């Protein structure tokens, strides 16, 4: 890494530049650094794959045509691995089918070289915004999943039935336990899932997409 970016906070975004052309890669990294981002260059798809998994937020700027796997192939591979880093394609001469394929596969932008700094930096900040929203959502999901993991089997069962709209009495009858016990478990679920109302609990269940996987979780 070049000097001048040492004083980066833990969560400052990192831009990954994948381009086989040394001078282009260097120039783009340099421009990004001058604009205040941290940048990391990779000469080909393989080098980038070796650096995975990447935990820091950021985005990928990628050339389409490279020796070895192309940019589009790398995108497909990353998608399969559940990559959440937005991809900006940068190409010498992109044609329409190529850009359509890239955008369908989730690329946030498809730029042609030579690219003006304004365009590139706007695309980067847009990508980071998208990535920020995605990672927030991811964080919440992780958090909710953690809460859900903390429930006991009995509590999860009661969670499911509550969300299905069953009354305490019905739940008790179905599980063969007292209505009081059901009430106690239900309070525990609300507590562990950090919600105050039935409505909130239903929403959380929706976010976790629990209905279908209820039986096997």
């Amino acid at each position, binding site marked *: 890494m070049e000097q001048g970016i040492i004083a980066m906070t833990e969560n400052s975004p990192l831009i990954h530049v994948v381009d086989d052309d040394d*001078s282009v890669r*260097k*120039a783009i990294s*340099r421009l990004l*650094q*001058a604009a205040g981002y941290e940048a990391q260059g990779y000469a080909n798809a393989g080098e980038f794959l070796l650096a995975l998994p990447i935990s820091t937020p950021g985005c990928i700027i990628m050339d389409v045509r490279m020796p070895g796997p192309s940019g589009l192939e790398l995108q497909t591979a990353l998608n399969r691995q559940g990559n959440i880093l937005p991809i900006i394609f940068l190409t010498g001469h992109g044609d329409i089918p190529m850009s359509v394929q890239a955008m369908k596969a989730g690329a946030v932008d498809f730029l042609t070289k*030579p690219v*003006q*700094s304004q365009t590139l930096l706007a695309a980067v900040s847009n990508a980071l915004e998208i990535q920020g929203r995605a990672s927030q959502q991811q964080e919440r999901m992780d958090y909710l999943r953690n809460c859900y993991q903390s429930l006991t089997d009995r509590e999860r069962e009661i969670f499911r039935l509550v969300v299905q709209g069953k009354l305490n009495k019905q739940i008790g009858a179905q599980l063969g336990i007292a209505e009081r016990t059901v009430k106690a478990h239900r309070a525990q679920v609300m507590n562990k899932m950090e919600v105050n109302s039935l409505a909130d609990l239903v929403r959380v269940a929706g976010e976790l997409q629990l209905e279908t996987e209820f039986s096997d979780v």
Partner: protein
Amino acid sequence: MQSKSFLSRGSSVLLEPGHVAGNVAVATSEATHSPSVRRVAAVRCIAGHIILILAFAIAFFILQKLTFLLRFPPYERTTLWIPGALTFSALLISPISGWWRFYIGLCIAGYAAYYGDPEIPGVVALLSAQFHFAMVAVGAWGILRLTNRDPFATVPSMLVFVFAAGLLVPLATSAPSDWIRWMRGLGDVWPTAIRSFLAISLGMLIGTPALTTAMKHGRGWFRSVTLREGIEGMVLTLCLMSVGLWVFTTSADSRAIPALVYAPIPFLLWAALRFEVVGASWALLAIAYLSTWNAINGRGPFVGGSRDDHVLQLQIFLMAVALPLLFMAVVVGEHRRAHALLLREMEERRKTEEGLRHASRLAVLSEFTASIAHEINQPLGAILCNAEAAELLLEKPSPPIDEIRRIMVDIRNDDLRASEVIRSLRGLLKRGKVERQPVSIYQIAMDVIAILRAEAERRGIELQLELGRVHPIVLGDRVHLQQVLLNLIINAMEAMKGIPDERRVSVCTLQRDDEVVVSVTDRGPGIPPEQIPRLFDRFFSTKLEGMGMGLAISRSLIEQHGGRIWVENASDRGAIFRFSIPLEKVDTKAEMEADTSWNRELSR
């Protein structure tokens, strides 16, 4: 001719009534001037004809009088009669519709020449002129019909000319007066008739080519003469005149050697070989005048025996020299023109070939313009990013000067990289002369690879370059050698269409003995053995969209460099195209230097 130039100088509109009417309707102001202008033009036209007639008559008259000087005193007839050549020349270079002017001029001059001559009355003179003109006209018409206006261009037309000018015209011109002599019973007519026939024939044959050229080209001919030709002509004239004077003025009593008459022949041959019919004609005229004039005055090798013998000897000598010389001059001219035509055709062919090669280069390059654009676009993109990064850095409170300096270095390198691609392309796009100069096979290979790298990348083909240890220099045309290599590499890449693995093209240079061999190897399916013999033929293509010119052009280019091009299939898979070029001898020091610089280049 002269009248024609008058016509063209005067308004041609006025000589065409229909046209005038049309013009009057369009522009009435012109109509008021029209009659006077028309009158002026008509007067000019008539004046032109009259001037031409008089000029011709005067020229004829003067020539007639000049030839009278070439008479052996007791005879009234000349030994060499030139005026007939003037008539013949005039008719040859004038359109048939203008011949009447020369007819009138001839009648005037013919009558005037014999005016007051008791031997030949005016009627006979006029009659002689009629015969003369009629025969000349028939001869000239025959030549114009048969020979495309220039009787001295080919041997057949020269034969027609000799028949007309050497036989028909002299017979017709001398016959009337001979007949009158015979009618009057003036002694033995026969020797006189032979002498006058030979005099006219000689004059026609020798004089016509010289006069035709002089009248046709006039001053223009002098302007077209180069300095070298002018000097040569002057030297020739000088030699011819000195030898002629020496040979023909040797006095008769100093036991002149008869064989001396052959002395001028080498110079006559010189004239014929170098200046064709015109030169031969003028040289013959000069020799004829010199020999005749001196013989009349009792000098030279022809003075001996009776006077009849003098004249006949002289005439036979001149005839014997003139006829073969004129024919030889015609053959030389024919040969020279054929040679010039051949050279011109070869030059045209060469130009066509070069055009074809150029077109083929353009076609090849146009196939991958996108890749070439990419190759230039990359450094341009890097330059833009670097420049904008520098701008951003400069806006900072304390700009990092070292970083900006590094950026500047990178910008310069990228700029050089872009211009390098353009440089290697420019030669191939240019349509220039073939230049033979020492060129480096390495440089050629590197340039071609630089152009093709992006294209190979696009097709997912690995392009390998294996350069031998020594640095071969050959004598050749850089662009043409690049074109050959370009064709071979593109063919190799085409050959690997649809081949999934080992997509590799390798270019190797190898120096052995006194030649350098460049090979292009692909890992495609190879060439079917039955196609190999025809592979380098024109219009033979295995590609669907191919023209079949690439390999044919490559072969012709390599053969022009004194090399060979051939193809064989690799033992396992793919084809190997090879070409060899003879090595240029260079001093080892330069070779070493070039070698190290290249190794540096390669290791970069």
